């Protein structure tokens, strides 16, 4: 009797664990994550039931002394840019709120000083790094949705690569059935076309700062993502994790992403390299090259950069701590040993 109930309990537990590990189709997985994201977003917005005003001091060329009165918990730097002009809207990539990098669609919560960053500032380092990160996130989204439901795709933590390395990378672990698959030119072309369709749809990257349990719930079906959530939560100062949604794909990121996919202009997936067996299977590195709308390259220049982007990008441990070390990176750039070219 006790044995039978024990057996039933065991069966039920096995069945429940099988249900959680039962493969949802990728569309169902995406819609589940997206709906959980929307719920959390609505919950965070409902924390400000009454509209309270905050004062936002605009800083930047030609904007000194502009004071905007915005809504707390509702207005974003994007809405501040809408009050200024269309040029500010088109060119704004990232915002600096009291010196802190702030995604453009994240709501402002207190009175602050706001600077809108563009790609053509005197110091666009933050914007460049955010752009590189966003291109990698876009690549991750494309890879997640590119394969048929029979094959699993696990996106690993996107390595932080400096822009001078020539290509952004997305580390991925494909299904074991695809271990011997090397993509042909057409495969990379089709990935590029997927990415360019996403760019054409001009989807915004919606940021959300969540507590780790919520993030763990969103990524419930991916053990790899859950470890990444735990890692990020351990490293962050406030213990929260930043997740971004683009379309219906939810992704984690170590730093701020740019405002929308439409900012990218020239985008190409250049290569796929195998890194060897890792913790989760055969690690692959997919590399790409992209340039924003405001900084397009002539096709001759693009071809040369693209050829360089096909080579494997090594991620050194020092470049992995890039976001924490931006001042030292800038001093490395002004190294007198390197020749400055006009």
């Amino acid at each position, binding site marked *: 009797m006790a044995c039978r109930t024990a057996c039933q309990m065991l069966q039920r537990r096995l069945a429940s664990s099988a249900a959680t590990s039962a493969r949802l189709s990728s569309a169902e997985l995406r819609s589940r994550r997206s709906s959980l994201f929307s719920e959390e977003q609505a919950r965070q917005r409902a924390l400000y039931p009454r509209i309270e005003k905050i004062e936002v001091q605009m800083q930047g060329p030609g904007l000194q002394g502009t004071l905007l009165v915005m809504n707390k918990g509702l207005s974003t730097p994007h809405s501040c840019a809408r009050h200024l002009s269309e040029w500010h809207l088109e060119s704004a990539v990232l915002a600096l709120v009291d010196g802190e990098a702030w995604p453009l669609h994240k709501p402002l919560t207190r009175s602050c000083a706001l600077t809108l960053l563009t*790609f053509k500032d005197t110091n*666009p380092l933050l914007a*460049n790094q955010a752009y590189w990160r966003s291109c990698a996130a876009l690549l991750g989204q494309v890879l997640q949705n590119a394969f048929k439901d029979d094959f699993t795709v696990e996106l690993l933590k996107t390595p932080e690569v400096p822009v*001078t390395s020539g290509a952004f990378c997305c580390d991925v672990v494909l299904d074991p059935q695809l271990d011997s698959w090397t993509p042909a030119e057409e495969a990379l072309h089709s990935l590029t076309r997927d990415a360019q369709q996403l760019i054409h749809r001009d989807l915004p990257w919606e940021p959300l700062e969540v507590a780790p349990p919520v993030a763990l719930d969103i990524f419930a079906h991916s053990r790899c993502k859950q470890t990444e959530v735990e890692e990020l939560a351990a490293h962050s100062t406030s213990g929260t994790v930043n997740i971004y949604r683009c379309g219906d794909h939810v992704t984690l990121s170590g730093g701020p992403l740019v405002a929308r996919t439409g900012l990218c202009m020239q985008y190409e997936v250049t290569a796929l390299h195998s890194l060897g067996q890792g913790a989760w299977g055969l690690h692959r590195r997919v590399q790409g*090259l992209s*340039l924003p709308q405001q900084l397009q390259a002539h096709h001759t*220049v693009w071809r*040369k950069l693209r050829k*360089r982007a096909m080579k494997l990008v090594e991620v050194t441990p020092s470049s992995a701590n890039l976001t924490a070390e931006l001042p030292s990176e800038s001093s490395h750039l002004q190294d007198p040993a390197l020749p400055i070219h*006009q």
Partner: protein
Amino acid sequence: MRLTLRALISHGRVARRMGLGPESRINMLRNILTGLVRHERIETTWARADEVQFYAEKLIDYAKRGDTDEKAMQMANFWLTEKDLLPKLFKVLAPRFENQSKAYTYMARLPNRENLDRAAMAVLEYKGNPFPPLFPAKRENELTLINQLLKGYREERAQLSGSKP
């Protein structure tokens, strides 16, 4: 039958008429040229600056002959009304342009004068003057995304070519 008088139509005539007559024109240009030699950058109407540019460059060509040359000294003496500028012309301006053969001056347009006449203004200067440049050289920002990618590309090329031989 010719119905028009050639003297009254100035089609194709390139010589400008300034002041009260040819002598007045030369005196005016002399004064402006003296001012240019003294200050090395002056602001006048566009037409006067255009006229003076020719004489300014010719004066430098004469000054290059040296102050022992009789003709050069006569020319400089005529054109510079303030005689303390003669040593400056021969000892400062002539050596400055000894390696150049032709263009010693820059002329740039300015906004029209605010008066009723709305005259077109220009600034005329001798090259090598101590003031900030009229056409500042715009350096491209080294830190933009595309320049950073190109920098990485150049460094890699240099590394590869350095390690090859």
